[in-house]
């Protein structure tokens, strides 16, 4: 398996608080990889560092062969077209309809005809399980689950190789959350995606993830498959064991 993301010795410091102190992990192609850990341990921070929204203070992050520490502007623009990011609250552009939201990267980055773009947009809307009739709604008119689905459709607009999800199932009711899990699994097999996600939802952790990294006390406490999670020595593991016994 080919590694797609390598994180080496990453250090993050906020003011004087050290968040990460030498994180190492590798994410392989085709995996659904989870970043887990107690609240405040810096999962989302690591995710934001991977998508170049935040700077880290030491070490290297390499994504699809690009080292983020010294990436050129052109390469970073190119890289940004190869991934999709789903934010916790969706972060849809509120002045645009769903269809316009999804069409935006296509209009900006491709020279496709309007008809073709419309077709792609409709396909993506259906792919994530929304109805074509929803296309002309504005984000403010959507429910939480629909927002997440539309945001997912937008992140899939450019057919990325890599998908980052920040707590994809948080704030969803259990049924929508399970739907979302199935959707993610389906998309992975359909589009051959590599998916990195931050999650708190135990059910979705067990159902969807191939491998996980648990961040605890500034370092990776465990990296490996979900099944072997019992071998770790971290306070955080208790919740897993408990969940398994239930």
């Amino acid at each position, binding site marked *: 398996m080919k590694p797609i993301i390598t994180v080496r010795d990453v250090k993050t410091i906020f003011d004087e608080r050290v968040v990460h102190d030498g994180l190492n992990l590798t994410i392989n192609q085709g995996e659904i990889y989870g970043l887990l850990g107690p609240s405040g341990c810096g999962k989302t921070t690591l995710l*934001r560092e991977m*998508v*170049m*929204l935040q700077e880290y203070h030491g070490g290297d992050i390499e994504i699809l062969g690009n080292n983020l520490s010294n990436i050129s502007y052109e390469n*970073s*623009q190119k890289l*940004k*077209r190869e*991934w999709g*990011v789903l*934010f*916790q*609250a969706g*972060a*849809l*552009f*509120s002045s645009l309809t769903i269809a316009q939201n999804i069409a*935006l*990267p296509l209009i*900006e*980055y491709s020279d496709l005809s309007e008809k073709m773009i419309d077709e792609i947009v409709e396909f993506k809307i259906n792919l994530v399980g929304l109805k074509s009739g929803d296309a002309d709604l504005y984000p403010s008119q959507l429910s939480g689950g629909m927002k997440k689905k539309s945001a997912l459709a937008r992140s899939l607009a450019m057919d990325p190789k890599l998908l*980052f999800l920040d707590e994809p199932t948080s704030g969803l009711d259990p049924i929508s959350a399970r739907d979302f899990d199935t959707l993610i699994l389906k998309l992975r097999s359909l589009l051959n995606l590599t998916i990195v996600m931050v999650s708190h939802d135990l059910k979705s952790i067990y159902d969807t993830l191939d491998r996980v990294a648990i961040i605890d006390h500034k370092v990776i406490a465990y990296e490996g498959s979900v099944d072997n999670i019992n071998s770790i020595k971290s306070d955080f593991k208790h919740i897993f064991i408990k969940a398994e016994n239930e």
Partner: protein
Amino acid sequence: MPKEILSIKKEDSNIYLEFVGELNLYKITICENQLNKTDFSQIKKIYIDLGKLSFIDTAGALFINSLQKDFSSLEVILNYSNLTKDILDTLQLVKLKKEDSEVLKQKSNGIFVSTGKSVYLSFLDFLSFILFLKEVGLAKLNYLKSFKNIRIKEIMFEINESGIKALGIISVTSFLIGLVVAYQSAFQLKIYGANIFVVDMLGISMLRELAPLITAIVIAGRSGSAFTAQIGAMKITEELDAMRTMGFDPYAFLVLPRIIALMLVMPILIFVSDMMGIIGGMIVANMDLDISATLFLDRFSTAVDIKHFYIGIFKGPFFAFLISTIGIYRGLKVKNDTQSIGFNTTKSVVEAIFAVIVCDAIFSIIFTHMGI
């Protein structure tokens, strides 16, 4: 009368505090008042009896806990007998949580330290504004590299939003200011029979100073605040982050179109403001000073130099640049809470108006020195 929750009995150097019934957060003040009235000077031993309590909430338990602490110099004897398990649990919970959260109180700083801190923070704020301007400058260079990058659609949208839609309010305000200036000066000029000079006065003050300032102030209140609120809200909903991860530079998409649009539209707005102010003045001159429109315009063309008009218009893009950059900078400064939108919007308007007036003063000095 409801039964008292706390009964206090004194016996020599002993005091008996007996709590009866429900001790909840509504009753604590009553107990405190009762205790405050009691004289503890000769007391050596305190017996606290919780035996007759039927219910206690966490606030009540905290109160009991703090009683023990307050009187720690005396001998406190707690009577827990006949307590139900619920009450014991509540007391225990409070005691446990209290122990592991022995808070370190932050030292409050003296006036010098806090003044120094806020001055330093304002200085940092100013530095980061300069940094922001650098970023805008870089974006502008990138932007102008190829013509395709210029986002005509966004610029047009902003011109409509900040320019066309502001015409009404700017016209009315300028008209009224022209009216007021003419009216006030008419009264004074009449005394000397110098009626006709109202034209000079109005023309020069309006074209050179008032129209640009009024326009800038209205735009600062209207568009500057809108920029801050829009961009701030986009920051809170992570729309800005989403743009960045999609490779859309917010500077090219949001910042520059707004700055360029405002800089283009400001001179036009000032021109409109000029005209409306003069019209307002003309009406007053006609009614109050018997200066006909023809006479007014005749005098206007001889008395008011064209340079005053050009100076007024020339200031427009500078004011527009200040208003839009401050508005956008404040928007980008919004933190992840709703309060900071309000805070930054207020700041953006105040700072923009202040910056405009400072800029106007500088222009005034420069132009006077240049002899224009």
